[in-house]
């Protein structure tokens, strides 16, 4: 693998940090939303479904712009958060938010499918054995949905790692703070003679993404084998 410059390393490390946090923080919410969409029927379900999928179809710049309006220092949510000392605009924490939101639809979709595939008769069996709804969820539903949750998490991680449009709109492209791999590649391409740097980062992106997919495939295979009692 080619040796990276400190600036490039910074971008790689930041990307990994942002994508990891985005995945870890959105996973509990994603599991909850996926479960609600898979199992409950309620007024406004179609709307929730649409809202979750929206970042997938909306131009990323638009999503980033909305985030800027909402979470900018003077935005309604940004002002509230600022009182607690949390600033998102033009910070790496803002990149976590935008990456998390952009990756959310993929995550929810994978997890929802796996919840829908869980045999509800097993949950009924758990109930007769004394498990209340929450314990049945933790001991039966969640483990049985695990392959899908792993897949959803890795998909979200890969998506977050490559997020560009919404992130650059919301938190800009500040080296060391918000300049992820994608943003760094974009910057290098603007500068004459930095093609080699862009290519190196592109190679890194390929390696990380491929590794994520292989690891997820392996984990999901193991989880599936466990579920089928092998």
């Amino acid at each position: 693998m080619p040796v990276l410059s400190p600036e490039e390393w910074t971008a790689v490390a930041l990307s990994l940090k942002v994508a990891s946090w985005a995945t870890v923080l959105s996973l509990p919410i994603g599991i909850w939303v996926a479960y609600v969409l898979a199992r409950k029927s309620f007024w406004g379900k179609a709307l929730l479904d649409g809202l979750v999928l929206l970042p997938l179809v909306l131009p990323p710049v638009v999503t980033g712009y909305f985030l800027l309006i909402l979470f900018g220092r003077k935005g309604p949510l940004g002002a509230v958060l600022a009182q607690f000392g949390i600033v998102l605009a033009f910070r790496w924490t803002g990149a976590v938010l935008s990456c998390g939101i952009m990756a959310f639809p993929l995550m929810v979709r994978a997890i929802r499918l796996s919840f829908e595939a869980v045999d509800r008769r097993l949950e009924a069996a758990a109930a007769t054995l004394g498990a209340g709804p929450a314990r049945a969820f933790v001991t039966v539903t969640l483990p049985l949905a695990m392959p899908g949750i792993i897949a959803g998490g890795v998909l979200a991680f890969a998506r977050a790692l490559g997020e560009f449009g919404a992130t650059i709109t919301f938190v800009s492209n500040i080296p060391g703070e918000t300049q992820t791999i994608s943003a760094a590649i974009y910057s290098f391409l603007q500068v004459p003679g930095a093609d080699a740097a862009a290519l190196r980062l592109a190679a890194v992106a390929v390696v990380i993404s491929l590794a994520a997919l292989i690891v997820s495939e392996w984990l999901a295979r193991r989880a599936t084998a466990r579920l089928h009692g092998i």
Partner: protein
Amino acid sequence: MLILDVHKRLGDFVLRAKFDTMSAATALFGPSGSGKTTIVDIIAGLATPDRGRLLYRGRMLFDSEAGIDVPAHRRGFGYVFQDGRLFPHLTVERNLDYGRRMRRLRRDAAETRRVVKMLDIGHLLERRPGKLSGGERQRVAIGRALLMRPQLLLLDEPLASLDAARKAEIMPYLERLRDEGVPMIYVSHQAADIRRIAAAVVRIEAGEVKASGGLELLDAADADAVR
């Protein structure tokens, strides 16, 4: 012991079941599709009647007028399903222990050993359900329901998915349970099975209780079948 009087509509099918039984081994007998499983689901708390009452040993489990509906996980009834429904992600040992864990009962190694020995599943403990034969799976399902220390055991055609040899393999275990006095409701459409297990019979047809009484009800059914 058990008093049931419920109404439930499921699409075109209407269940209007009313019976009471004092026997510790009661069979629900009737053709497939007559509503036997729905009745057992109602007793277990997995299906909710539109209206009616259900009492077991003086405890009101369901009463639509009083707004009582004890959820399945608080009824303490063991349920052996026709299709086993073992948890595929847990070993046999963990499946057997599941009810005890969920009900937060004390570990009772002697009782576990006794049930494991009675059902002859000691050599299966480390395996997962995917690696069991149909007969083994049903034996584990019976063990799982027993080890939750149920107040009542619901057996819904536990032998139906098995061939004659497997059936013969499990029947003695069920007879032994009955002889030990574990109260049970046994669902079957096979008169011969019921004769070996039950002392009281409730005959169900098209969602209604046609008769309830002793094993002699099976003779009438046989006569019907011959005619």
